[in-house]
Structure formats: structure tokens, C-alpha cells
């Protein structure tokens, strides 16, 4: 009996114990859940959102670049790219072999892709293929649900319709490298590498937007939650007239050289051509190493922008500077005459005039028209080196023009005093001053500087900053203090270079609609006998020793609109080889103007008919 009561009591005791234990266990659970759901709630909610929300960048559309007439020079084509996020791939071998089947990749490309995926960060997209048309990616998009981690993204890629013709101005893009990534670019973005694409990168690029996507545990996109659209890059309208550039390029043909055409009032560049160019579209589709190497090794240096990055001896075109200096310093010879027997005797040697027969009596006017060397030897000798250099500097030589395309060469102006001081030069001979006076000395200039100089002659001495943007306000760097009478004399002489029957460019350019004023130049590369020049025409290897041909000037003579400089590397003679290029340019512009006039007249007529119409009814 006592024992039975004991058993029951013990049982009741244990029952209480069980009730207490149950309460404790449930309370423990509750405390833990309060901790999780109230105290750790915010942090864990953040993690839950991090789990499911994937922020995908949306690339901006790059601004396009057009010429002055709105013709596209750098435009965007719609295309598709395939990328993968490695950590989201379920089975890499299966995924890649499916992609290979659909895309018909060769095994070598697959191996390359595999290597890139293995190297890449697992949470960042890796680009597998780019610039694909829709019909190539369509089969993949249909299977996307079975290809976790793979994404097909619509976008644009850069296309240069004129390719090599505008290569030095426009430049090119390529995929962001490590440096760009550090600067905040995304791995799939393109960055301007040269030309205006590089210089206006921040304007053209725009700002990437982003898209918040909801993804499931396998990384597949379930929904788009939020979008902040990208800021589209700004378009740029250039002052370049691509048709004119094409005309210049066609006129140069296969020759190496540079052509600059500048508006004499605004400083706008209508043409900035360096030939040969290079295929900018190659960079976009992924440039092969060999191609790049071949460009680097090409003796014609296609990557060099000859209009701004290279300086050449200006040859006889510099005689205009020498003439202006003579006038400025009231040298007797500038208003007088000398006699040219075909050479000038100096100490123990003769300085040759290009015309062996000589020019007989020569004034400044005749010396420019016929490009007499002897006259300028003497004028230079009278002026002295310092005045020659000072005059050249006034007209914008030896300094950067300030064009936005960098880097820019400044050219060289010989400065004997400095060089003597620094010990680079032991002595300066009279003959060197004389040679400098005809542009065959140490002076070098860029074709752009030359065009700007021509513009300054035409516009009354205004040195303008050349610009590549359409409708930009002219930036005046300085006005050269020059007497109008001196300029007039120079201009007339330049006109007669073409207009006079014995002018050095008469036979290639005498054409009346837009009278041209200009000056030829033939720069000796190495001392070469006249006979060898003819030989050089036959053998291209010898071509490298042929003279450079220059022609600079402006048109029309009486109402200057454009100034130009044409430089043909190893081209031969300024009058016969460079001047026809300028002729083609001026003809084109004259034709353009005539067409515009005709068009305007037609419009006027139409309007006149319209206003008359009611009366006839």
C-alpha cells in the first residue's frame, strides 16, 4: 500500500518534471526565434535580398560621331553577346558542349574559352562571344532555361563606315583592360583608345545604368525588379566633311601623305587626312596580334597621324615666311631685285638654285612665283637666322596648334644661339642660314601648322586654334602684327604661282572658278642627283629617297574660304605631285557650292510659284 502510494507519488513528481522540461524547451526555442526574427532580422533580411537580387549593369549606348553634314563616322550596330557567370553554371562541361554545338565553335576556341572561364572571378560575367547577329544567338536564347549561368545580352557595337579614311581622327575602341577596370569600367565595356574616341571618351561613353534582377538559387533570372536606365553618351558632330576627305584621299591615291583643309574664318578642319590609314573596325572585332605587328612594322607607318604627329622640312613653302620677314624688316632686297644665275657662290662652294638655268632678274614677287632659291639665299643672309626664326614663330611654327588630337608634334625651328650655348653645335655657318631661308635647313613643320599658316595669310594674320567640332566658336590664338600691304604682296605672288604661266603650279591648277593662291615646296630628303630621281620612279625601294612634295594655299583668292596644305611623302615635286590634290579639293568645294546655290534657287522658285498660285486661280 505504502509502496503503491510511493509509485504514484514518484510518477506525479516525474510528471511535473516533464511539464517543466516541456516549458523550458519551448521557451528556449521561442527565445532563439525572437533573437533571429527580431534582433537579427535586419541583417538577415539584407542577406536574403543579397541572395535573390542580382544587380546587372546595363551598358549605355555610346554617342555617335558624325561629320559636318550628319554622315555617321562612328556609329552603333545592334548585336548580341554571349556571356557566362561561372559560379552559376551547373555543369560546365555540359553547358560548354551545348554552346559549342549551337554556335559551331571549333575545339580550339572552346579550349580557349574554358581557360578564360577558369581564370576569371567566379561571380563576374565572362564574355564568350560578341557582335553576333540575331540569327546566330536565336537557338541559344531558345534554350536559355536549360543553360544556367549563360546569358544573351542585346547591345550595340561600334562600326566605322569609313574605316581607314577616318582612322586617325576617329580612332578606335577596345575592351576594358586592368587599368580601366580600376577606373570603374566594367569588363564588358569598350574604351576609346585613340583619336577622338579616346579624347571625348567621357562625353561619348555615357553612364551605365543597372537592373535589379531576382534570381533563384541556381542563378536563373526570375524577374526584373527595378531598372535605372543608363545615361546615353552624347553625340559629337565634327567639322570634317567626309566627302571632301574622300576626295583628298582619292587624289592622293596610294601615296603616303597628309592633307589638311581648314576654314579660314573659324579654324574648323574640313579635312584631316593622313594616309595610309588603318582598319579601325579590326580593333572592334578583336584585333589579331599579327595584324597589329604588321602595322607596327610597316615602313609606311599607317598608325602615325602625319597631319599632327609628324614634322617635315617645309621646303620652298617656307619662302613665304622669309619674304614676310624681309618685308617686315624693310630689307632692301625685299623691295629690290637680284640676279639669279642658277647658283650662289659662297666661300668655296656653290649653293644651287633648283633651276640650273637661273631666273635672271628676280624680285620678291617673281621669287615666290618661280620659287627662286638664290633670291631667298640672299634675303635670308641679309635677315640673319634670328629674324627668320622669329618670323616663323610668329606664324605659328615651332609650337603646338592646340588641336584636341594629342599627342601633337611641335616641329623644330633652328635656334643657333641656344644650340651653340648648350654645346650641341660648334659653329653656325652663313650657308646654314641661307638654306634655312628656303626651308631646306633644320626647320620642320607639321601639315596642320602649314594649313593654319595658309589660313592666317588668307584671313589677315589671325592664327586660329584648329578645331574638329562643327559650329564651334573660333578661338583666336593671336593676330600677327603684319602690314596689310605686305600681306597683299604675298597673296598676289601666291596667286601668280598658279595664275602666271611660269608659276610653279600653273599647269596643274590654273582653273578659274575658285582662283587658288598657293605655294609649292619640294623638300630634299637626301642629296640626290636629278638623274637619280627619275630612276627612283621605277624602283619603289629607292622611293624612300625621293623628295617630299608640298603644296599649301587658300581659295578662292579674292574671297578666301578655305586654306589647305598637301604633303606627299617622297612624292616628288610640289607643283606636279602635291598641287593636283589641292586642285581636286578646291574643285569639289566649288562644285558643292554651285550645287547648293542651284538648290537654293530652286527652293526660291518653288516658293515664288506657291505665292503666285492664288492669283492664277
Amino acid at each position: 500500500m505504502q509502496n503503491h502510494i510511493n509509485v504514484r507519488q514518484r510518477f506525479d513528481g516525474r510528471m511535473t518534471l516533464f511539464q517543466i522540461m516541456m516549458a523550458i524547451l519551448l521557451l528556449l526555442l521561442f527565445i532563439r526565434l525572437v533573437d533571429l526574427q527580431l534582433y537579427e532580422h535586419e541583417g538577415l533580411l539584407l542577406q536574403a535580398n543579397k541572395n535573390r537580387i542580382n544587380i546587372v549593369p546595363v551598358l549605355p549606348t555610346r554617342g555617335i560621331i558624325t561629320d559636318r553634314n550628319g554622315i555617321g563616322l562612328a556609329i552603333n550596330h545592334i548585336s548580341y553577346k554571349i556571356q557566362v557567370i561561372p559560379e552559376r553554371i551547373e555543369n560546365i562541361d555540359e553547358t560548354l558542349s551545348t554552346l559549342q554545338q549551337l554556335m559551331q565553335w571549333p575545339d580550339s576556341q572552346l579550349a580557349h574559352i574554358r581557360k578564360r572561364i577558369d581564370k576569371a572571378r567566379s561571380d563576374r560575367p565572362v564574355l564568350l562571344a560578341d557582335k553576333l547577329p540575331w540569327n546566330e544567338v536565336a537557338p541559344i536564347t531558345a534554350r536559355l532555361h536549360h543553360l544556367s549561368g549563360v546569358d544573351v545580352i542585346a547591345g550595340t557595337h561600334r562600326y566605322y563606315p569609313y574605316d581607314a579614311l577616318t582612322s586617325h581622327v576617329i580612332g578606335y575602341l577596345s575592351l576594358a583592360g586592368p587599368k580601366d577596370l580600376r577606373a570603374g569600367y566594367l569588363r564588358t565595356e569598350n574604351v576609346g583608345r585613340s583619336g577622338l574616341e579616346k579624347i571625348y571618351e567621357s562625353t561619348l561613353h555615357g553612364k551605365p545604368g543597372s537592373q535589379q534582377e531576382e534570381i533563384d538559387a541556381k542563378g536563373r533570372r526570375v524577374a526584373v525588379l527595378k531598372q535605372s536606365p543608363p545615361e546615353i553618351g552624347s553625340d559629337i558632330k565634327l567639322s570634317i566633311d567626309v566627302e571632301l576627305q574622300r576626295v583628298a584621299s582619292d587624289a592622293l591615291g596610294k601615296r603616303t601623305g597628309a592633307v589638311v583643309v581648314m576654314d579660314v574664318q573659324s579654324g574648323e578642319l574640313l579635312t584631316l587626312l593622313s594616309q595610309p590609314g588603318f582598319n579601325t573596325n579590326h580593333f572592334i572585332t578583336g584585333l589579331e596580334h599579327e595584324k597589329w605587328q604588321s602595322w607596327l612594322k610597316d615602313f609606311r607607318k599607317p598608325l602615325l597621324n602625319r597631319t599632327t604627329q609628324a614634322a617635315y622640312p617645309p621646303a620652298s613653302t617656307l619662302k613665304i615666311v622669309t619674304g614676310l620677314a624681309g618685308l617686315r624688316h624693310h630689307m632692301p632686297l625685299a623691295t629690290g631685285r637680284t640676279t639669279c644665275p642658277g647658283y650662289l657662290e659662297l666661300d668655296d662652294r656653290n649653293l644651287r638654285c633648283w633651276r640650273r638655268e637661273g631666273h635672271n632678274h628676280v624680285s620678291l614677287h617673281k621669287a615666290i612665283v618661280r620659287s627662286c632659291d638664290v633670291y631667298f639665299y640672299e634675303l635670308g643672309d641679309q635677315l640673319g637666322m634670328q629674324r627668320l626664326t622669329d618670323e616663323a614663330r610668329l606664324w605659328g611654327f615651332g609650337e603646338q596648334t592646340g588641336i584636341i588630337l594629342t599627342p601633337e608634334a611641335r616641329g623644330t625651328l633652328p635656334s643657333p644661339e641656344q644650340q651653340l650655348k648648350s654645346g650641341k653645335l660648334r659653329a653656325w655657318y652663313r650657308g646654314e642660314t641661307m638654306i634655312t631661308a628656303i626651308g631646306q635647313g633644320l626647320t620642320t613643320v607639321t601639315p596642320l601648322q602649314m594649313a593654319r599658316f595658309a589660313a592666317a595669310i588668307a584671313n589677315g594674320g589671325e592664327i586660329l586654334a584648329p578645331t574638329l567640332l562643327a559650329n564651334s566658336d573660333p578661338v583666336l590664338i593671336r593676330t600677327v602684327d603684319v602690314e596689310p600691304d605686305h600681306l597683299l604682296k604675298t597673296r598676289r605672288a601666291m596667286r601668280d604661282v598658279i595664275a602666271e604661266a611660269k608659276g610653279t603650279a600653273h599647269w596643274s591648277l590654273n582653273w578659274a572658278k575658285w582662283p587658288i593662291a598657293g605655294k609649292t615646296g619640294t623638300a630634299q630628303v637626301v642629296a640626290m642627283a636629278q638623274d637619280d630621281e627619275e630612276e627612283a620612279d621605277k624602283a619603289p625601294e629607292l622611293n624612300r629617297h625621293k623628295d617630299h612634295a608640298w603644296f599649301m594655299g587658300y581659295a578662292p583668292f579674292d574671297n578666301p574660304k578655305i586654306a589647305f596644305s598637301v604633303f606627299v611623302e617622297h612624292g616628288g615635286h610640289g607643283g606636279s605631285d602635291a598641287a593636283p590634290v589641292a586642285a581636286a579639293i578646291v574643285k569639289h568645294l566649288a562644285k558643292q557650292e554651285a550645287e547648293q546655290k542651284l538648290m537654293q534657287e530652286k527652293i526660291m522658285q518653288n516658293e515664288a510659284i506657291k505665292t503666285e498660285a492664288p492669283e492664277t486661280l
Partner: protein
Amino acid sequence: MNTLFKMDAILLFSLFSLAILGTFTLYAAVHHGDITIWQKQNLFWLLGIAVFITVCFVPLRMLGLMTWPLYLFALLCLLLIPLVGDVQMGARRWLNLGIVHLQPSELMKWALVILMAHWFASREPSNLINFSAAAAMAAIPAALIVIQPDLGTALVLLLAAASMLLASGIRWRWVLSALAASPVCLYLLWSNMHNYQKTRVISFLDPQSDPLGAGYHVIQSGIAIGSGGLFGKGFLEGTQARLHFLPEQHTDFIFAVLAEEGGLVAVLILLVLYAVLVSRILAIASHAHTRFGSLLCLGIASIFMLYIFVNIGMVSGMLPVVGVPLPFISYGGSALVTMLAALGIVMRVAIESRDKIPWQRPGSPLA
């Protein structure tokens, strides 16, 4: 028919509430995936209720007769597993009986509790022979389950057996000496554990050590529960569940779905329902008119309590990951049906004890 009217209303109410909560939660867990799981579970509910009602009609005397056959049948199934069992997730736990996939360890828990309740109904536990016999009843199936290998279930089985011993009134000095021996047992256990079990324990102690491996479950369920907050993300709105970040979300980790979508409020409702259920079973144990009935109810209550604590404890990151279902919420036919059968037994105890005086209480026939 009288029998049905004698059922315990509070127990029925809590079961009914849990059934509704479980059905909704399971729907939330599978609606974005395989909805047939939910439909199957609804059929299991119907089957389970039929079993529950049937068991209500089985007199406890008959159950007393069935204790040994039931236990031996479960033991036989456990023995058969290494020979013919199905392998799932690296362990042989299931027995294919044609139509039903039976998990013998699941059956064994209940069989053992019933057997021990019957064993101690008329025996003094603080007796070396009685105690040793009971220990062997528990140790043999536990050993068989460990080698499956299913450490969690074995531990639950041993804990259920321990609570039966405690309930039977074993003296405290026996308990203390058993506790003293436990470090040795733990060492033996650890040295016999499989590598995957060790990594589970380690990843429990430091879940961030292997976030995509063994710790992934716990991290993701922690995120799901915590991100639910006070009121939850709303029915079917749980992102962790909907986007499949939660592993095994319709079975062992279903609690995280409830906590994510219903928040602390839903969690509190669930815990209160469980508290009502378990305390009601304890109350029935207290008022049972035979000692067998009392011990049965205590054993069943402790299994429920173990399930609840181990499951929620593991999902919320308090305990290592052990394959234990959340009663009436998790998907799983055999677990649901056996649990409903067990509740049927409790209900039978309540029915038989209605209007009767508890055993050995003043006024009872034996007092």
C-alpha cells in the same frame, strides 16, 4: 459510436489546428515546385485520420498484447535494411514494401516506447534486471540505426527511451550513474561516426566554415527565418522558399518556410499549438486510469517534444542537422500516419479513462 463522443476535445482541437497550419505551410513550400507533393500529403492526412479513428477503437488491453509483436516486427525490418534497403542520400534507411516505402527506424521509436511503457507498467525500474532488459530493448535497435547510418534518429530513439525510464520512476542515483558514464559513450560514438556525420557536427559548431557545403542548409534557413521578422513576408511571398534557396524545404526544413512567410507571429501560434498538444497529452497521462496508459502517453509526449525541439532547434541553428520531421507540418507519409496512430493511442487512453479515477489515486480501486 459512444467511443467517438468520449474523445478529448482539446487534443482534437490542437490536432485540427495543426492540420490546417501544416496544410497551408506545405502548400507554401511546394507551390512553386512540385504541387503533387501537397496533393499526396493531403491523401496521407485522410489515411492518417482513418488510422487515428481505427486506433481509437483498439482497447489498451489488446495494445498490451501487441507490444512485443510490434517491437519484434520493427526490429526485423531494421535487420532487413542492410540486405534489401533502399539507399537514399548515402544511407540505407528505407524498406520498400511494395506500395509503401517504410522507414523502420520511424516505426521502431513508437514500438519501443509502447514496449517500455508496457514493461514498466508493472515493474520497478530501479532493478538491475528490469533496467538491463529495458536498456537492451533500446540499445539493440539504436545500434542497428547507427550503422545505417542515421545518428540523429538513433539519438532520438535513445532520448525517448531515457525519458521512458525517467517517467517510469527510476531512482535518481541510477540516473546520476548513467550520466557519469555518458562521456565515455560520447567518445565511443564520435570515434564510430562517419565523416559526413562529423562534418555535420562541425558545421553546426561553425556554420560559416563551409558556407556552400554542410553549413549551407543552416545558413539559408537562418536567413529565411530571420528575414521573416515579426509579421513575415506574407503567404507565398517568402523569397528564400520561392527561389529555392532553402534546401529540403518541404521536409525537414519546412519550419523555415513558416517562419519566413508568417514571421514570429506564425511561429508563436505553432509553438502554442504544440504546447497545447503536448501538455494535453501529459494531462491525459496524469489522469489515465492505468499505469500502462500513463506511461504510453508520457512516452508519446516525449517523442513529440523531442521532434519539435530537435527539428526547430536544428532549423534555427541551435542544434546540428538531424533528420527529424516537424510533427504534422513536414511532408512525409509514414511519419504522419505513425504520429496520427500514436495520437490515436493517446486518445484511446483518454477515452478509456473518462469518468474514471486515475490509478493509485485516493479513491481508485487499488488505492
